[in-house]
Structures are given as C-alpha cells and as structure tokens.
C-alpha cells in the first residue's frame, strides 16, 4: 500500500501560517489517525510546524464534522484544521 490520499483544508490563522488554504497529501502507511496526521504534517516544514505549534488551539473536522484526534481517516477524506471558531 502506497499511503492514503487526503484533502487537507486550513482556515483563519492556520491558513495564513501554512500559507495554503488547501493541499492534497498522501499520508504514508503508519499514519492512520487524525492525531498521527497532525504530527506528520507538523514535521513537514517550518510553516506547518508554526501552524500546529499550539495543539490546544487546533480544532479538527473530518468530512465537515468535528472529530477528535483518535479518529481514523479513510482514503479521499476531507480533513480541516482551524482555530476555535469565533462566529456569531
């Protein structure tokens, strides 16, 4: 197996820090949960590292629903990372 293709989205200051609104990534074998994905993304480069530096401020949605870090993703999933929401 060659890994899992995912669509990653970033919002607000996470988008600014990563420098991208979205990217398609192939998570390598062994990266199976959202928490593992965070660790792998953060290790990619300084921009990603900066976006993920404070885990307390990172929220995750899997296929447009809030999800916790122990959840496993599947091929083709949409994973979004963003700070706590401030609408209303």
């Amino acid at each position: 197996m060659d890994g899992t293709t995912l669509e990653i989205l970033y919002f607000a200051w996470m988008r600014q820090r990563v420098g991208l609104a979205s990217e398609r990534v192939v998570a390598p074998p062994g990266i199976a949960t959202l928490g593992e994905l965070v660790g792998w993304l953060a290790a990619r480069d300084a921009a990603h590292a900066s976006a993920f530096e404070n885990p307390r401020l990172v929220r995750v949605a899997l296929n447009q629903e809030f999800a916790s870090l122990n959840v496993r993703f599947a091929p083709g999933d949409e994973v979004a990372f963003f700070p706590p929401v401030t609408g209303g």
Partner: protein
Amino acid sequence: MATIRVQAEPFDVARELAALSDGRHEVGGIGCFVGTVRSTPEREVTALTLEHYSGMTERSLAAIAERAEERFGLLGCTVIHRVGRLPAGEAIVLVLAAAPHRQDALDATGFLIDWLKTSAPFWKSESTPDGQTRWVEAREADDTAARRW
C-alpha cells in the same frame, strides 16, 4: 422548516420575520437576535472580516437548527450569517425562532446563538484604525454559555 443562509449581503429582518410567520396562525411568539459589529472608544474596530468553511458551515447550522426545532417545539427558525468585510455597526448574524409560546421562542433564540458561536465554523478578524488586522480569539464565556443548554 429551518431557513439557513450564509451570505455577504445584508439581511432584511422584516422580510425574514414575514417569511417565517405570515399566514401561520399557530405562531404565538417569535424570538429574534441580531448581532452587530461593535466598536467602542476603548477598543475601536473599523470592520470585521468573516471567513467560514463553506459546506461545513451550512451543515452545522442546519444541525443546530434541527436540534432547536425539536427541543423547543419550534414552528420554524431562521439563521442568516454574513461573511466578508463588515464595517462597524453592520449586522453580522440574524436568528429567528417561532413557537406557539413566548418562552420557547426566547429560549430557542438563546440556544441557537449560543451554539452557533461555539460550533459553526466562522472566524473573525478585526481591522483597527491604525490599519492593523488581528484574529479575534475565542471566548471561554461562549463555551460556558453553550454548555448551559
């Protein structure tokens, strides 16, 4: 029966009220909340810019509305949230909840705005008179307000 919209344009409260209640004689009360871009001399804001997660936003608003309709026995509700750049004084969000009786209408209005604030994927950045822009931080008080329900 919920009306959910995310839009850049202003909303017309009178028209939304009419759409929710005209000809529906079983409605006894409509609760309403309008949130606006606030600016004070101590914390001057020229505008807010609202970003959202298109797709998830509509889903999460629809889910919140459905919960409110069930829990408070609503005859209908409306949530309209604006996005983009909104100068000080502009309306940001409209919540309407129609029910047979006033207490349910008012409680549902509070429920909807409290949950929207903590679970709908919107983010605000503030522009200040010195030309700076900063992201608004989430407030602990908003989580507490939503957990009351």
